[in-house]
């Protein structure tokens, strides 16, 4: 009896010592000799697993000559490779394994995922290894895929919303806009070559610039064995240097307007904000501020939405490494634009005063953010994508400690960040509106 008791205690203690948790899930990370970081999370609700490769690539690594090619490369990932050569073979394998897949290119990350039954994890890892390490970049396939991406480009620019956001980035980040332009330039996409694909592959698609994220119904030991079996042969590359010149700050307030056939007016007000580096408190303070202002019980919500002046609004801090902003985005009837702007600027003026903040509400917005994180992580796919994103942009340690850091942010931290970036910063205003509102309310913007 005594023996069994000690055995149970030993097992329990070793569990405490060796297991790590990430947002209440068992978590384990390893680094292969080639530099590939492997992040594994156990979720046992359903018998599936998501295998994701996250790459530190995206629009921020682009030059004017290859603007849009991080995204085209992402498309080429889903083409043939040395093992499953033709597109037919590749697609067939996807279906055999029951894979639901996608890829996404953003400013500072490119992510690819396969979600499949957990019983197929070994085959899934093998499939992922060939797709990421050995693409063929067949020139006929590349030519076809260029047209696919050009159609995606045309679709995006057929929506007024999209044009609005692209213009906003081009105004805010005028000098190095190509580092914010994910879809890219049409002529660059239309003339992309295999050589350019290999250039991206050799520079960024190396194990020491990627993470393999595995979330789902898994066994750590077995998964680790499979990972080593398939990914150890991936050859280490030259460490990537991400030393780009900084995006210049705004030197004056800027405005732009797009007039289109739209039912409501969209108003965007953006301030340049600190880049995310994980050390400073400022990004966390601005993140908390955006959560605070988004609460439906906040003063801003009462004045804008409850009053009926605005349909909805979004406040957010983008938290990127290469150019960040703090933005207000509002959707409203054009006739209300003057009143809404006046109210919004009155609020902004008070953001650096302690009286503006209700301590209980501030505490609540910390909890709100935490609950929302847990909600988002309910899905293993969403967990994998969030983790992959953090690995690329903010680092896993910062993801782990995010809620703790937020908990420690004080009213004073917020006021200090607001004073530095908002109260004393230049801003950019953007309007997407219909011709009537333009004529009646915004025609003074002509020529901006």
């Amino acid at each position: 009896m005594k023996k069994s008791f000690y055995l149970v205690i030993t097992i329990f203690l070793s569990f405490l010592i060796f297991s790590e948790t990430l947002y209440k899930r068992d978590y384990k990370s390893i680094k292969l000799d080639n530099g590939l970081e492997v992040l594994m999370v156990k979720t046992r609700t359903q018998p599936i697993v998501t295998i994701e490769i996250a790459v530190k690539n995206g629009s921020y690594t682009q030059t004017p000559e290859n603007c849009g090619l991080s995204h085209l490369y992402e498309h080429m990932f889903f083409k043939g490779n040395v093992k499953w050569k033709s597109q037919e073979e590749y697609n067939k394998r996807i279906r055999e394994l029951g894979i639901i897949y996608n890829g996404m290119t953003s400013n500072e990350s490119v992510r690819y995922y396969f979600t499949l039954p957990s019983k197929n994890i070994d085959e899934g890892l093998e499939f992922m290894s060939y797709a990421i390490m050995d693409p063929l970049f067949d020139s006929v396939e590349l030519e076809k895929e260029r047209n696919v991406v050009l159609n995606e480009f045309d679709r995006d620019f057929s929506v007024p919303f999209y044009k609005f956001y692209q213009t906003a980035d081009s105004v805010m980040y005028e000098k190095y806009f190509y580092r914010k332009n994910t879809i890219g330039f049409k002529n660059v996409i239309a003339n992309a070559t295999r050589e350019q694909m290999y250039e991206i592959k050799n520079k960024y698609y190396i194990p020491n610039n990627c993470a393999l994220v595995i979330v789902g119904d898994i066994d750590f030991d077995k998964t680790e064995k499979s990972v080593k079996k398939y990914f150890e042969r991936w050859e280490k590359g030259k460490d990537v240097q991400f030393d780009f010149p900084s995006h210049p700050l705004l030197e004056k307030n800027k405005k732009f307007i797009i007039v289109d056939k739209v039912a409501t007016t969209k108003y965007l007000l953006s301030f340049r904000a600190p880049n995310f580096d994980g050390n400073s408190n400022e990004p966390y303070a601005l993140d908390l501020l955006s959560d605070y202002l988004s609460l439906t019980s906040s003063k801003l919500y009462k004045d804008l939405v409850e009053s009926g002046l605005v349909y909805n609004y979004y406040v957010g801090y983008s938290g990127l490494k290469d150019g960040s902003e703090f933005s207000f985005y509002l959707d409203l009837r054009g006739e209300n634009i003057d009143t809404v702007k006046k109210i919004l600027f009155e609020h902004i003026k008070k953001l650096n005063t302690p009286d503006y903040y209700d301590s209980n509400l501030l505490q609540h917005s910390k909890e709100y953010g935490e609950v929302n994180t847990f909600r988002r992580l309910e899905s293993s796919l969403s967990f994998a994508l969030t983790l992959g994103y953090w690995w690329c942009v903010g680092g896993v340690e910062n993801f782990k400690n995010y809620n703790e850091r937020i908990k420690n942010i004080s009213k004073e931290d917020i006021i200090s960040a607001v004073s530095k970036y908002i109260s004393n910063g230049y801003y950019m205003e953007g309007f997407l509106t219909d011709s009537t509102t333009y004529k009646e309310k915004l025609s003074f913007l002509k020529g901006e």
Partner: protein
Amino acid sequence: MKKIFFVFFIIMIFIFSFSEVYRERISKNLELLYKYVPENDISSVSIFIEGGSANYGYEKSGIENIIFRMIEKCGKNYSETEMNELMDKYFVNVSYDNSYDYSSFTFSTLNKYLFDVTKIFADNLKEPDFSETVLEKERNRMIDEIKSKEEDPDELLYLKLNEYFFKNHPYISNPEGYVETVQNLKEQDLYNHLKKILSNRRVVISVVSGVPFKDSEEFFKREFGFINGKFEKIKGVKEFDLCKGDTILKYEKGGLQTKYLGCKFKIPSVKDKEYLPVRVGLSILSKRVYETLRTKHGLTYAAYVGASNKLVNYGVFYVSTLYPDSAIKLYRDEIEKVRKEGIKQEEIDDMKNIYQTSFFLDNERTSNRSFALGYNYLIFGDYDYDMKFIKELDNLKSDKVTKTLLKYLKDFKFILLE
């Protein structure tokens, strides 16, 4: 060894008993489905009302949507300001799905607030506040949202397809509403309609929660006991009234960088036994069309074929391309290929794998689970229907899929948006 086996057996029974769905009839027209999931931190509640567009005519299109919006916003006992504060306090997420066959309202919160939040929404449903001052704001918002949909070419194409396909059919009563119908919806219309549906339509409340059923049963009975009417069976909705043969209509939007082509065609009801082979067949056709149009020819970024899930049902073909004539030709070629060569058993087996993954993926979120529980029960009379659907794929043979699919691949009604 025996002991280990016994412990394992007990654990399995324990897990199994906790995954049971409790079903309780609260009144003649109200049933409660409750799934207790001990490991859940989040609770989700879905309220389904049967009928959808069968509950109102064209001139009241959008009425159930605006009712749910108002219930989310306020009630006689909770002002808009109070509701906003409470929704924050209890970390509530709300969504609603106003479909052609039902309306549903789903909310989720932390387990510890399940009763507080449910009480608020039950109260708003029992004693709503549709007074003109609050209603006007929501009506304006809804009208502008409807107008905004026309900005997005995909949304506009969908609206135009429905306008044509649902002509002379009850589904023309768009659950999202039209500008001209929403602007005429008045306070009294909303009170009358809510009273009508709660007193003679079937209502299903489905819950997935970490709170044990024994602790919740009486609470739900008490809070929703006011839904106590008769259960009027809805007459079968008639078939779509469409001409034979293919048609193509063009619609000019302007300002588009590419063209958008969509088409609808009749398929069996989601409750019909032919639905399963047709749905699987269309998924396989979708894969073939995607590979031909996008992968082989690079004609498009988006190409899709699929089955909807309505009581009176339709299939869809969609593509965005600068070359719609070539896209239609290739689509027809693929149908011809199905006619000549049929669907392969291997393709069905592969599709089963994808369906399974997708089913498990959907099941990870508590709100999806409470929705699926109620939806399956309301539409199919079986809360486990989607699991059985997946299992049934094992028995599906290629000749059956080919034969059934071909019966429906005709009379395509195309709309081209340019």
